[in-house]
C-alpha cells in the first residue's frame, strides 16, 4: 500500500498533541495521520501513551482527569479536540475502549442497542450487519454481557461500536487476552470492517498482527512518536523486530531453566 500523506481535510489528523494528567505529561507533541479508508497502527510499550492518544481523540480524557495541553485533532477537516465524547461519536468517530468494558449487567442485545443510541436512525440495519459479522452475539442475545468470555466480550465491544455506523473506528488493544484463534478472528474482522469503508486506528501489543493489518504504523515511546513508517518497512527493519517482536532478543531465547544471574527464591521455613 502507498503511505504518502493524504490530502488535508480527509481522514484523521493529529498534530502536535500534548496531554497531561494533572501535572504529569503523558503525550508530548504527537502528530499522526489516518488517511480515510486506511488502517493505521500505533505501537508502543505499556504506558507509552497509546490509550491516552485515543482518549484525546474520543473526548474521554476528562474521565481520567486528563486534559489536552496543546495541539489539535481533526477529522475530515472539522476539529475534534475540545469536543465531548458524544459529539465526537456524532461526527462518526467511535472508540472501542481498552479492556472491552461491556455493560456487564445488561444483555448482549441491550449492549448493542446502547451502541446505537448516539448514532443515526438506521440502527436496525446496523444491527443486522453486526450480527452477520459476529453470529455468536445473536446466539447470546439475551445473556448478560458480563457473563460472556473475554473473546465474546471483545466481539460485543466491537459490535457495539459498529452500531453507531462509524466512519472511523478507534480500536484499543482488541486482542488483549484473546486466544490465538480468537485474535485471528478479530484481525479478520478488522480487515472486513475496513473493507466496508471504515478507517481504523489500531492500537496493539500484538505487533505482528498489527503490522499485518495496517498500512502505516507509528511507534510511541514515553509520549512521543519514536518511529513511523509504512508497515512493510517497519516489519523488515531490525529495530522494530528487536524492540517489539522479541525476535532476535537474546533474553527471549534464553533457556528458562538454569539461567545465570536470575534471582532465586528459597522456601520459607517458619
Amino acid at each position, binding site marked *: 500500500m502507498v503511505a504518502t500523506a493524504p490530502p488535508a481535510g480527509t481522514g484523521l489528523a493529529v498534530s502536535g498533541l500534548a496531554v497531561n494528567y494533572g501535572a504529569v505529561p503523558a503525550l508530548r507533541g504527537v502528530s499522526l495521520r489516518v488517511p480515510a479508508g486506511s488502517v493505521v497502527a500505533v505501537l508502543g510499550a505499556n504506558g507509552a501513551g497509546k490509550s491516552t492518544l485515543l482518549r484525546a481523540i474520543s473526548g474521554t480524557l476528562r474521565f481520567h482527569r486528563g486534559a489536552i495541553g496543546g495541539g489539535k485533532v481533526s477529522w475530515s477537516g472539522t476539529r475534534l479536540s475540545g469536543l465531548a465524547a458524544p459529539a465526537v*461519536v456524532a461526527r462518526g468517530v467511535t472508540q472501542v475502549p481498552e479492556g472491552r468494558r461491556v455493560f456487564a*449487567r445488561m444483555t448482549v442485545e*441491550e449492549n448493542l442497542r446502547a451502541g446505537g443510541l448516539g448514532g443515526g436512525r438506521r440502527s436496525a440495519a446496523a444491527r443486522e450487519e453486526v450480527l452477520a459479522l459476529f453470529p455468536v452475539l445473536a446466539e447470546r442475545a439475551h445473556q448478560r454481557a458480563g457473563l460472556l468470555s473475554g473473546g465474546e466480550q471483545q466481539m460485543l465491544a466491537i459490535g457495539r461500536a459498529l452500531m453507531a455506523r462509524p466512519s472511523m473506528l478507534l480500536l484499543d488493544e482488541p486482542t488483549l487476552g484473546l486466544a490465538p484463534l480468537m485474535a485471528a478472528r478479530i484481525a479478520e474482522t478488522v480487515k472486513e470492517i475496513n473493507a466496508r469503508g471504515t478507517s481504523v486506528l489500531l492500537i496493539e501489543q500484538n505487533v505482528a498482527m498489527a503490522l499485518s493489518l495496517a498500512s502505516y504504523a507509528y511507534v510511541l515511546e514515553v509520549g512521543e512518536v519514536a518511529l513511523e513508517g509504512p508497515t512493510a518497512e517497519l516489519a523488515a527493519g531490525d529495530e522494530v523486530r528487536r524492540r517489539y517482536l522479541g525476535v532476535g532478543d537474546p533474553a527471549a531465547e534464553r533457556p528458562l531453566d538454569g539461567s545465570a544471574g536470575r534471582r532465586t527464591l528459597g522456601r520459607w521455613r517458619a
Partner: protein
Amino acid sequence: MITFLELLLNGISIGAVYALIALGFVVIFKATEVVNFAHASLLLAGGYLVARLQPVTGFWAALLIGVAAAASVGALIEFLIIRRARAGSHTLLAIATIGVDIVLTTELTRQIGTEILALGDPWGGSVVHLGQVTIAETRLVALGTAAALIALFLLAFKFTGWGIAMRATAEDAETAALMGIRLGRVSLSAWAVAGALAAVAALFLCVFPTPGLDRSTSLAAIKAFPAAILGGLDSTTGALAGGLIVGVTEALMSGYQNQLAFLGRGVGDVAPFLVMVVILLARPAGLFGTRETARV
C-alpha cells in the same frame, strides 16, 4: 373479616404511595448507582409548593407546577452536586445526599414553620363503600396512579433508548459516553423524574386520611427505604412489591396491635423493618434485585 379487608385495602393503598416514593429511589439508583437519601426532602419540596400555590392557582395548576418544581430541584441537585462529584464513590455520594437532605429539610421545615398546609385536592374527605368496606377516595386514586406510573417506568427502562442509556450510564459512564450517550442529560433526567415522582407521592401522603403537609411529612418517606430495598434497589417491580409489603404489614400490625400486645405497643412502625431484615437474610439483594455476580 370486614376489618381485615379494610385494613388490607388500606395497606395496599398506602403501600402504593410508598411504592411511588421507592420508585424515585430506584430511578436514581439505576441511573447513577447512588442511593438518594435526599429523596425525603424532594418530597417535602414538592408538597410544599403544591400547598402554597393551590390557594392562588387552584389545585391542578398547583400540582403541575409543584411536580415541575420538584423535578427542577432534583435536576438542580444533580447539576450542582452529583455531576461535579462524579469522581467520588457511590457510598460517598450517598452520604453527600444526606448533606443535601439536611440542608433542604431544615430550610423547608423552617418555611413551613408550624403550619399544617392543606393541598386542596378535589377528593376531599370522601370515602368509597365497597360492600361493607370503606376506603378513602384519595387512596384509590393513589393506587391507580402508582400502578400506572410504575408500569410506565417498567416498560421505559426495558424498552426505550432512555432506559438503556440510563442503565448503561449507571454501569460505566465513560463507556456510555463513548457510545454517544449524553451523560449529563441522562443523569439530569433521572433526578428530575425522581423529583417529579416525589411530588406526586407527597400529594398522596398529605391528602385526606392525613390532615395535610407539615414539617413531619418527610418522615413518612423513611418507610420507603425498607420498601425500596426489600424489593431490590434496582428493580421497578421491586419498588411496587416492596411498597405494598410495607404498607400492608404496617396497616395490619397497627390494626391488630391489641391482639399483638406481646410484641409491644406501636409495633406497626417497626414491622416494615422487621420484614425487611427477614427478607434480606434470605435474599441479600432484595426480592427482585439483581444479585451482584462478579467475574474474576
